[in-house]
């Protein structure tokens, strides 16, 4: 009981409470939806309570809870949770997007509703655990655990190719993870602990070893992000996943990859991070441009959004490996932005898919005339995603570009060309988003089936409103968000600068 009363444990395992209720409930679909929604809303409440207790001035981990878990046979494994400026926004993003995703399934998931909700809540638990765990072993468990419910969400409730996509998703991600497992073991054996703060404080990993450990961790995270050229699982998973699955996949699961770089690769292997920053940034920039170009050539709306994620997460990676405060803060904010904007885009796609059961551009056109409310919302979200000033995407991308520029000549990246090409990505984003918008919403209604489409229902609008509020809030007044992360980022940058001098 004492275990559960710890704020972070309560937060992480709160969704499991809902799972237990669902298990006892039997197969009552309507009630299952409400229980799941209530659980996720309460979890959001708990996360706000955690936010209330969070001291933004403090750069260190807070609300810590550590417990000696496996202390035998030479293992020194602790159950250790903590939260700081690097993770708090992502935790809030997770708890914020979950009820929205659940609400979006109201009519989209009709079969085996209870099972869907159970897997969904388990997924939420896993994601929260990933962001809060401070012991490498514990982190790895949550990290791998998220695969299982997501695998089922795609595989049972997905599209026609769902089984293929589910297996591909699982194997791809696992391939990277087990390399990371070996690296975790190496740290545990040679440093004598799996506890992240201890490992960071200890330091002292020789640079040539750091190089390999960095790559092993990067294997897991880069696949998750996904960075070019390890992205090929993403379009399949996204296109086949049900809408709620896509929202969470793009909104939160991909952030687990970028968060992993931020939380583990940078502070654990700072010298390797400095050494490899140009290489990582190169991949990031290729991803930005590649994702944008491929997005433009898609004929399926959902695929377009999926590829645009590769481009957006390229920005996040570029910001992280600028290795300065601006770049990292921009990256963290961009993680949140991408979660909101792309989550909203997937919802937008989901709304029309529920009505027409197709996502081909050629099936649409002139929707503005038929569904004006829908069209306006889609426009705002598209603009946010392409980074229009005044909306959230702009703040994140601009800060990242400033950071990358600052890391140019004489900085971690060593060249301003990264920034130049990345900026090109911003322009390309405008091209493919506007192209999509034009194809779908402008012009005359070309397909007869679209003439009788009903505009959004109140439930659907209610799903979108919280996202829109954040889109404007972050776009117009991002200061509170930066304030939450600033001290922790400063501390990380100090550590990285010390490593760069060596």
């Amino acid at each position: 009981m004492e275990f559960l009363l710890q704020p972070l444990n309560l937060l992480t395992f709160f969704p499991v409470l809902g799972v237990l209720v669902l298990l006892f409930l039997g197969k009552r679909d309507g009630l299952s939806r409400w229980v799941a929604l209530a659980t996720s809303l309460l979890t959001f409440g708990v996360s706000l309570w955690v936010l209330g207790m969070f001291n933004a001035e403090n750069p260190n981990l807070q609300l810590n809870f550590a417990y000696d878990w496996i202390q035998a046979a030479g293992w020194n494994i602790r159950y250790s949770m903590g939260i700081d400026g690097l993770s708090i926004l992502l935790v809030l993003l997770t708890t914020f997007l979950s009820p929205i995703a659940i609400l979006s399934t109201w009519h989209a998931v009709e079969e085996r509703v209870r099972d869907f909700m159970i897997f969904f809540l388990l997924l939420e638990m896993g994601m929260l655990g990933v962001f809060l765990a401070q012991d490498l072993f514990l982190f790895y468990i949550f990290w791998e655990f998220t695969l299982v419910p997501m695998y089922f969400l795609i595989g049972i409730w997905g599209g026609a190719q769902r089984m293929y996509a589910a297996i591909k998703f699982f194997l791809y991600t696992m391939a990277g993870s087990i390399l990371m497992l070996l690296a975790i073991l190496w740290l545990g054996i040679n440093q004598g602990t799996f506890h992240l703060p201890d490992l960071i404080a200890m330091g002292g990993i020789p640079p040539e070893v750091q190089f390999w450990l960095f790559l092993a961790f990067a294997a897991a995270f880069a696949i998750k992000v996904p960075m070019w050229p390890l992205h090929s699982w993403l379009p399949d998973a996204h296109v086949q996943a049900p809408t709620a699955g896509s929202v969470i996949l793009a909104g939160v699961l991909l952030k687990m990859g970028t968060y992993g770089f931020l939380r583990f690769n940078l502070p654990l292997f700072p010298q390797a991070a400095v050494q490899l920053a140009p290489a990582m940034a190169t991949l990031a920039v290729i991803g930005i441009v590649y994702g944008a170009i491929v997005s433009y050539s898609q004929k399926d709306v959902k695929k377009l959004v999926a590829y645009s994620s590769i481009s957006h997460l390229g920005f996040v990676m570029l910001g992280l490996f600028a290795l300065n405060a601006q770049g990292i803060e921009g990256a963290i904010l961009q993680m949140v932005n991408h979660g909101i904007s792309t989550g909203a885009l997937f919802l937008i796609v989901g709304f029309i898919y529920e009505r027409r059961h197709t996502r081909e551009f050629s099936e649409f056109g002139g929707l503005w005339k038929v569904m004006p409310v829908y069209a306006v919302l889609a426009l705002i979200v598209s603009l946010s995603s392409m980074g229009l000033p005044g909306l959230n995407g702009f703040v994140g991308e601009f800060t990242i570009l400033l950071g990358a520029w600052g890391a140019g000549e004489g900085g971690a990246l060593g060249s301003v060309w990264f920034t130049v090409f990345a900026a090109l990505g911003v322009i390309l984003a405008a091209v493919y988003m506007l192209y999509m918008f034009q194809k779908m919403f402008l012009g005359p209604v070309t397909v007869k089936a679209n003439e009788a489409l009903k505009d959004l229902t109140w439930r659907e609008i209610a799903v979108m409103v919280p996202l829109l509020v954040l889109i404007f809030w972050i776009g117009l007044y991002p200061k509170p968000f930066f304030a939450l992360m600033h001290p922790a980022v400063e501390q990380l940058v100090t550590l990285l600068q010390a490593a760069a001098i060596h």
Partner: protein
Amino acid sequence: MNFFSSADLITALPLVFLTVWACILLLVAAFAGQRQGLVPALSLAGLLGTAYLLVSQMGLQADAFGGMFVTDGFSTFINIVLILGGVLSVALSYDYLKRMEIAKPEYYVLMLFSISGMMLMASAADLIVVFLALELLSIPLYVLAGIARGNLRSEEAGLKYFLLGAFASGFLVYGIALVYGATGTTLLSGVVAAASAGLEYPIYLVLGAGLILVGLGFKVAAVPFHMWTPDVYDGSPTSVTAFMAVGAKAAGFAALLRIFVSAFPSISEQITPVLYVMCAATLIIGNLLAIVQSNVKRMLAYSSISHAGFILMALVAYGNDAARFDVVSSALFYLLAFTFASFGSWAVVMSLEKSLGRGLEFKDYAGLFRRSPGLAMAMLVFMLSFAGVPPTLGFAGKFYLFRAVLEGGYVWLAIVGVVASLISAYYYLRLIVVMFMQEGEPEVARVPALGITAAVTAVASVVLFIFSGPLFAWASQALLRIF
């Protein structure tokens, strides 16, 4: 002249008890007549009695019979795993045999004899005793494999197992003879003493060790001595397969670990490369062949080959002094994790088996989640445990194994292991896909014993992972007697 003392008997008490019990049961079986439940019930009682004696012996470190028999933490651990396997086997068998119309009382007696042989194997500190134990465990297994008389596949399995097993025993004996030739003794302690005093012809010791590896490699189904496994596993009645997959493997590894770690560290330089290649080949070939199976029983057979490969990974590092401690305990831990998942998955397979050898294809599992969510969830846990995905005991087992490998400095072997786990995840996932995501109407036999076994092993696989501290501690205290 005293051949043995009462102290010897007390040291070997659990084994003696079980053997005597099995002999008595043989008589009971002859007179049991129509009371079909009697022999299995008495077998369970015998196993539980043995378990009690084992637990009361915990912590005992003693030699018996002039050093030929050892009771130590290692043997106790293996024996408890074996008894656990025995209990689960009896629980799985009773109803299954009736359903398949092959219920025979001697089945259980043979099983007890085989377990006695396995237990002797875990305690054997003399190569001749190893041979004796091997025969005692194998001969009943040959009979059990062919116990479905009249069923061609079962008969084939029995015969094949017997012929190849006899062949492998020949290798073992020849190896023992060479070791004797090199050192003048078959006692493990004597071998160590002779090796440290310097051998005139050390090559014979190496050759002998190699041949012993062949003989035992056959028992644990390591590549390239695995050819018999799929046919025997597939042809035998599934309850026998379940017993064999864990029991024979545990006993074989018990002997391998004890002999190599305690008697052959001096020749690790020559043996390690052989083990390395054998282990890598077992991991890769076992997994690759498992992928192409369309029959669940054969898939599990090949997967059990690959698990032998994983346990061998630990053994590769046996010559490294720093890692030696973890070699033994990680192998034991993995064996325990494997035991739970293996018996559990066989219980599920038996629930779906309609008549001997039917209802075992992947497609027969389609829609299992809808028909029988409990069984499907249990099978999910076993598959995840086999694949080494948290939160299951199989993950903890792999974690521990990889540690032993890394401590031994075999990074590339660890990477081979990683690739192997990835390949294995593919076919385990495929079964999950079939069970959860495809439509179908599987026929499920509702047998309490099977359901309970599946449920208990599934819960154990998860709960014991969460509270794995004591289990790690126990495995790490299961020390081998080092001479």
